[in-house]
């Protein structure tokens, strides 16, 4: 198992969870999501206790799921409240309910020991639900292990080669990066500040900037799930004022939620929030289409990479260079979190007896 447990993961956009049953597999765990009549999001294990039929392919009646196979009926807390043909409901007839929180337009689900779920530990992406920003978003399924997407996003030099004509220009790959790793707060920062760069179509057409630009990329990765790219573009020479204001800058907050589904499948949630052209639908449509194209370029490349890796013998060599400094740090932190998540016993939970 290569998942980081005892962590929060994005399961869906809030807007995608309603009165239809939604099935998602997160870290190998099948989950069904829906919204009760009072508006609360519920996340239950997506298997009927009777014969394992997926509850996501069943029916929602009022606030209860009625299994589509034999009618076992589950309340939002996972308790079975009715079984067919008999009065007695077996004591063990219950499906696990997952801790869940809606935040910043995402539905976050806790994967791990329920007693350890700390809702205050969910990393934030406040721009997505801030009226001072206009946001476009989507989700693309990836047929590749989530670590490949982490590698991809921590090293943006690939923009020059994989996303040329969209967000890539030569300066991205040419510009040195600064990497910071905060082992106390579990955050990785990778910054690339381009003082004099070509303006790629993604920004030229959305901002109206022509000519050379200042382009800053400041990554903040909160492993395992949330990735933030604070992107600033401005006319060449324009930097923020001493008081912190930035009248010449255009700011785009690019947010990814990297949610492992299975060992070789990942949900690639992406969102682009901007602080300019707020009411301009043409800009929104352009950024949505353009960014989705960029994401699909990544998806195609990483799906190919997954097939290559899966076909190779274990231990095949790879080579890291300076551009990989942040990605290597992310791998290390993920490994540390994975060990901590696997080793951490839930408070008060009895430990399995040692084999004798």
């Amino acid at each position, binding site marked *: 198992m290569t998942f980081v447990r005892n962590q929060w993961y994005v399961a869906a956009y809030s807007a995608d969870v309603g009165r239809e049953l939604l099935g998602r597999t997160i870290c190998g765990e099948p989950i069904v999501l829906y919204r009760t009549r009072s508006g609360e999001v519920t996340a239950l294990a997506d298997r009927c206790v009777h014969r394992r039929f997926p509850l996501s392919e069943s029916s929602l009646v009022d606030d209860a799921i009625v299994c589509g196979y034999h009618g076992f009926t589950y309340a939002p807390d996972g308790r079975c409240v009715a079984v067919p043909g008999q009065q007695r409901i077996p004591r063990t007839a219950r499906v696990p309910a997952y801790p869940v929180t809606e935040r910043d337009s995402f539905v976050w689900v806790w994967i791990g020991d329920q007693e350890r779920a700390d809702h205050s530990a969910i990393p934030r992406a406040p721009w997505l639900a801030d009226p001072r920003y206009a946001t476009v978003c989507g989700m693309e399924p990836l047929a590749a292990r989530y670590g490949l997407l982490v590698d991809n996003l921590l090293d943006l030099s690939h923009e020059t080669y994989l996303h040329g004509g969209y967000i890539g220009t030569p300066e991205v790959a040419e510009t040195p990066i600064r*990497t*910071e790793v*905060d082992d106390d707060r579990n955050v990785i920062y990778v910054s690339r500040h381009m003082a004099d760069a070509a303006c790629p179509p993604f920004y030229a057409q959305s901002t109206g900037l022509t000519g050379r630009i200042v382009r800053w990329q400041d990554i903040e990765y909160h492993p395992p799930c949330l990735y933030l790219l604070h992107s600033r573009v401005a006319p060449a020479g324009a930097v923020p004022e001493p008081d912190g204001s930035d009248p010449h800058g255009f700011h785009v907050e690019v947010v990814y939620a990297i949610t492992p589904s299975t060992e070789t499948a990942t949900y690639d949630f992406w969102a682009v929030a901007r602080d300019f052209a707020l009411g301009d639908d043409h800009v929104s449509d352009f950024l949505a289409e353009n960014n989705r194209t960029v994401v699909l370029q990544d998806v195609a490349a990483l799906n190919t990479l997954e097939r290559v890796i899966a076909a190779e013998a274990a231990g095949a060599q790879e080579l890291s260079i*300076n551009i990989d400094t942040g990605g290597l740090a992310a791998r290390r932190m993920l490994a540390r979190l994975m060990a901590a998540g696997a080793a951490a016993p839930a408070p008060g939970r009895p430990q399995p007896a040692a084999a004798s």
Partner: protein
Amino acid sequence: MNADANVYRVDWLPGTDQLRGTCHCGAVVEARDPVLLWERLLAHPSHERRAGI
């Protein structure tokens, strides 16, 4: 950056292939390979010994 935090920083020195790592203890290590750089940086508190690899 919080001076008290357990933070490691790696700067890619402009115009070179050199990486310079700064440990939270203030130690500075350099390498031209990120794998080696992280190895030296994370050797805290034994930076000196590891730097000689």
